[in-house]
């Protein structure tokens, strides 16, 4: 079963606005990662936040992690048309070994209108 649930499933905003996507998960994790997928392409890694971190920034991206609520959010500030894509959260559950296995959410489709 899917570990991550993402909300909203779809989001449409105007260029320049901020976009916020949320991810919830079910089990203890080592880290949570966000990926972007442009239509018809492979996934591109955006940012990783470890379980002992609460917030992380990378350029226009801000990720928060609340392990007590088992949730994360991705904020894209000052969005651009080029940010139009699907965004996925992925969690690496704790467990034996260091396999790097990821469990993905179903994704949020973001449309940024020029």
């Amino acid at each position, binding site marked *: 079963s*899917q570990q*991550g649930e993402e909300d909203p499933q779809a989001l449409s905003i105007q260029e320049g606005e901020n976009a916020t996507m949320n991810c919830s998960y079910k089990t203890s994790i080592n*880290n949570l*990662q966000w*990926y972007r997928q442009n239509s018809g*392409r*492979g*996934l*591109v*890694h955006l940012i*990783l936040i470890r379980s002992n971190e609460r917030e992380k920034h990378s350029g226009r991206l801000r990720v928060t992690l609340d392990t007590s609520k088992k949730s994360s959010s991705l904020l894209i500030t000052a969005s651009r048309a080029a940010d139009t894509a699907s965004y*996925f959260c*992925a969690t*690496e559950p704790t467990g034996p070994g260091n*396999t*790097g*296995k*990821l*469990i*993905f*959410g*179903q*994704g949020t489709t973001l449309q940024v209108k020029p």
Partner: protein
Amino acid sequence: DAGITQSPRHKVTETGTPVTLRCHQTENHRYMYWYRQDPGHGLRLIHYSYGVKDTDKGEVSDGYSVSRSKTEDFLLTLESATSSQTSVYFCAIRTSDRSTDTQYFGPGTRLTVL
């Protein structure tokens, strides 16, 4: 793209035929993964490998087998393809250094089973 290629990129086959998808990497990474992506399910892990001849099952391994005889190649085989295996298949490799633990994805293979 971390030097990941997948072949073929597109394939149409008939139910009951065997199919092998190939993932090739050029950077000698230890961990490799096969995922399938379906609408409404996000990405789901099929199998993964943690070294030559070392593989393990993922979330949706039934009907699939894998082999890794060389570090650079990870093969996914559908012994007898079924229509439910129509999907987009992504290969990924894992990099790991002090600050990141990232998966890089190949471009995907679109498989249609008629």
